[in-house]
């Protein structure tokens, strides 16, 4: 019997939302305990700051320019390499419960497997693999899927429609009548994508994901090795947790985040020192992507709205932590406590008030780029607890799963197994971590390339309809942790900048000759 892997992801969760990372709003004792017993990463960086590319990187162990999912709405090819498939072929039982999102949601033609499964009442499908064989879809023999809210074709939506149909309308409508991201406000402050949701906690998708995970685990044989990706849709917007749970955090007591400059003049001066797309979005003159409401202008965001969104996010994070606790208890009840590796992370962050902004977009700063990542190795492996300060990427997850399972990483994986401490990181001469952004929205094109090297983060813009390729960002996190001082054009940083850009271009390699077309906005 080998080590089992519980891979836990959330969606759009900030580094500073966890108690173990200094968060003071949400109580996250379960993840905090895993961090104390295991390895806590202080600078885990996504290879894309939106869902589909980032999740595709986790599954394939490849950068977006390799797996080809350059933005939400571009499906991961059905026969893309899959680390879950590697484990499944090695004898692991495999499941993905919750949010997958390797394929678009808006799918009127029913072309994508994730949507089709629930519609047909199935939890598995056989599909072609990259090596010419066939096997479970993307290597998962069991798929039970959910996303934000209860609309759409996924398993959670079907379950709610069958069991509690009245609750469907209680959720916030994520899209408006034009199928754009909804800008309608709610709650006490009128913040966008906020709604008081009367749904009971045990009908909410967070508990459903935990319940279905436990059900799958309970059906396994005691001696099975397994890899389970438990994927919570929260704390991604909309911010509509069960209203009965809102007692946990009064938004009026929530402090404004350090990254939120309260004075408008100060806020705008900081934005004006960054590439032009920052200020243009803030002012409502540029919408470059589908990741935020089309008709919402960030400059209208108030301090109270930031507080209310952050309170709701904290409640969602607490529900996730408690749901994870239930799953760990179920593992222990099966006698697996010593043999389960738990990896907890997210796909990308959330601006959540930083710079006066919400949601996400082409903004490669800590709000979106610094992720919670905790790896609690199976106690039987006797790995010493540690804190890793060196940058790591989500691209490193797939080879880490292989390492846990005692398998060699596959040649198509581009990352390397996560270091167990800083000495391990340094001794393996790990390279820099890169992040890419490519968006096209009806004639608007934005492309960013970013390198993270210890305390330095440097972003270049590629020529498009917004940038001419000369603008960029350079932050020295050692003395500017809030990334308020853009040193890209600072003469005293010129040598550092040139060195970083050279490293970045070396790490990226050639650009793809052709991008696959968008199939949907999300």
């Amino acid at each position: 019997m080998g080590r089992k892997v519980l891979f836990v992801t959330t969606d759009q969760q900030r580094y500073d939302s966890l108690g173990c990372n200094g968060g003071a709003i949400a109580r996250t004792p379960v993840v905090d305990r895993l961090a104390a017993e295991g390895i806590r990463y202080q600078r885990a960086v996504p290879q894309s700051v939106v869902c589909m590319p980032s999740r595709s990187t986790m599954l394939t162990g490849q950068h977006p320019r390799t797996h080809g999912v350059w933005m939400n709405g571009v499906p991961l090819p059905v026969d893309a390499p899959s680390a879950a498939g590697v484990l499944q072929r090695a004898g692991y039982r495999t499941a993905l419960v919750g949010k997958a999102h390797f394929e678009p949601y808006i799918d009127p033609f029913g072309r994508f497997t994730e949507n089709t499964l629930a519609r047909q009442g199935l939890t598995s499908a056989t599909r072609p693999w990259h090596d010419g064989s066939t096997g479970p879809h993307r290597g998962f023999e069991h798929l039970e899927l959910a996303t934000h809210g209860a609309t759409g074709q996924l398993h959670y939506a079907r379950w709610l429609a069958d069991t509690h149909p009245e609750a469907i309308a209680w959720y916030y409508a994520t899209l408006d009548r034009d199928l754009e991201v909804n800008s309608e406000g709610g709650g006490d402050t009128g913040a966008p994508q906020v709604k008081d949701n009367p749904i009971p906690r045990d009908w909410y998708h967070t508990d459903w994901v935990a319940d279905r995970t436990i059900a799958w685990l309970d059906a396994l044989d005691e001696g099975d090795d397994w890899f389970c990706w438990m994927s919570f849709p929260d704390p991604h917007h909309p911010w509509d947790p069960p209203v009965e749970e809102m007692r946990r955090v009064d938004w009026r007591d929530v402090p404004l985040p350090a990254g939120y400059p309260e004075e408008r003049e100060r806020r705008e001066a900081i934005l004006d020192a960054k590439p032009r797309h920052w200020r243009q979005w803030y002012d409502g003159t540029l919408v470059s992507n589908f990741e935020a409401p089309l008709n919402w202008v960030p400059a209208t965001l108030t301090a109270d709205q930031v507080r209310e969104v952050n309170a709701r996010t904290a409640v969602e994070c607490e529900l996730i932590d408690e749901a994870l606790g239930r799953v760990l208890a179920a593992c222990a009840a099966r006698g697996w406590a010593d043999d389960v590796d738990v990896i907890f992370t997210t796909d990308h962050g959330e601006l959540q008030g930083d710079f006066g902004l919400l949601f996400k977009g082409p903004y490669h700063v800590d709000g979106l780029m610094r992720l919670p990542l905790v790896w609690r190795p199976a106690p039987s492996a006797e790995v010493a607890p540690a804190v890793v300060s060196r940058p790591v990427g989500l691209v490193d997850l797939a080879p880490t799963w292989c390492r846990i399972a005692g398998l060699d990483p596959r040649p198509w994986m581009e990352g390397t197994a996560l270091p167990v401490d800083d000495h391990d990181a340094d001794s393996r001469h790990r390279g820099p971590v890169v992040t890419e952004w490519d968006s096209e929205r009806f004639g608007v094109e934005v492309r960013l390339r970013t390198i993270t090297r210890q305390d330095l983060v440097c972003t270049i813009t590629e020529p498009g309809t917004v940038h001419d390729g000369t603008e960029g960002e350079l932050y020295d996190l050692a003395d500017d942790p809030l990334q308020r001082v853009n040193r890209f054009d600072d003469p005293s940083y010129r040598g550092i900048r040139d060195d970083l850009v050279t490293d970045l271009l070396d790490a990226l390699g050639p650009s793809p000759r052709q991008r696959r077309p968008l199939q949907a906005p999300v």
Partner: protein
Amino acid sequence: MSTRASVRRHVIIERPAHEVWSVVGRPELLHLWFPGIDECTVDGDQRDITLATGVSMTERILTNDPVQRRFQYALSGPLFHEHLATIDVIELDTTSSLVVYATDAAPATMALVLAGGAGAALDELRRQFESSVGPAVDAVRSSPTRRSS
């Protein structure tokens, strides 16, 4: 902010334009090369389609011009403020053709979603013609003279 959009997909098929048009110009064959359209019936200038998700839609055929090799139709329904789809089959040389499938729609999101389906349809059209295997090419082989314009 405007929510209208125009999105274009295209494919080059290594077959003469008149052969490709023999499928594209027959609106009753759409379900044989458009993934996700399960049924299709034509009555005059009206085409009714049923999607794999069970959704039914009605289209009005606006242009079916075998000389220009241009086919246009408009979807109607509560999801659309406007819609126009245009398929052009353009001869590149005697053995190959360029097929362009344009979608103009409001709201804009629908243009993108429909264009995604159109792109998949073009890929399937190319696959069938270049492999000579598939229900659409079989249909024109079995009834080559049938014309719908």
